[in-house]
């Protein structure tokens, strides 16, 4: 069974640009979670999508947004990038009452 896949592995942007990160869940999983792992801040919940709808979001500004497609894959968009957005962005997938499985993340670097 293929795990959660994320692309790209690394992404380098400059301040003010926009970034798009992608996630493909495990087959059969309908929920996708996004987390940010920033140095010194640990893993923080960003967004939760289930059946195409945004179910919950963490304490992040509106320039962090995303969507879930009919095939349950998901996209995270970060607008107006700031230096503090440099982090590893992790996607996890799950289905009803199952634990979350994580991908290996996208390393976003802001220059």
């Amino acid at each position, binding site marked *: 069974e293929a795990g959660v896949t994320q692309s790209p592995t690394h992404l380098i942007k400059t301040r003010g640009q926009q970034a798009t990160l992608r996630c493909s869940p495990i087959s059969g999983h309908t929920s996708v979670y996004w987390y940010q792992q920033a140095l010194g801040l*640990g893993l923080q919940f960003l967004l939760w999508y289930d059946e195409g709808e945004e179910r919950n979001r963490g304490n992040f500004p509106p320039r962090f947004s995303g969507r879930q497609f009919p095939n349950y894959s998901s996209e995270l968009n970060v607008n107006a990038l700031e230096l503090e957005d440099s982090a590893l962005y992790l996607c*996890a997938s799950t289905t009803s*009452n*199952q634990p979350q499985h*994580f991908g290996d993340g996208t390393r976003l670097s802001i220059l």
Partner: protein
Amino acid sequence: QQQVKQSPQSLIVQKGGISIINCAYENTAFDYFPWYQQFPGKGPALLIAIRPDVSEKKEGRFTISFNKSAKQFSLHIMDSQPGDSATYFCAASFSRDDKIIFGKGTRLHILP
């Protein structure tokens, strides 16, 4: 109220020793407490998890001890091996498929 506090930040243990990581929480509505293991360059992987109605759960060399009244739980790694060197996160959520609130992590290094 939704924080999970984890200690120590880093831990060095001799090969064959016992590694112990401690966590505490405030919100009694948490119903699921997983531990994740993360190697450099990889995403977190679920190691072992427990529900608050169970005081202890053991899987191989890994044991979770849970004290509901004290709102504390801990991970014990018996016979620690160099391959166990990784960052460990305790966590809590309101259900198995809900958002996860993570502790800050413990960097564990096992000396060969």
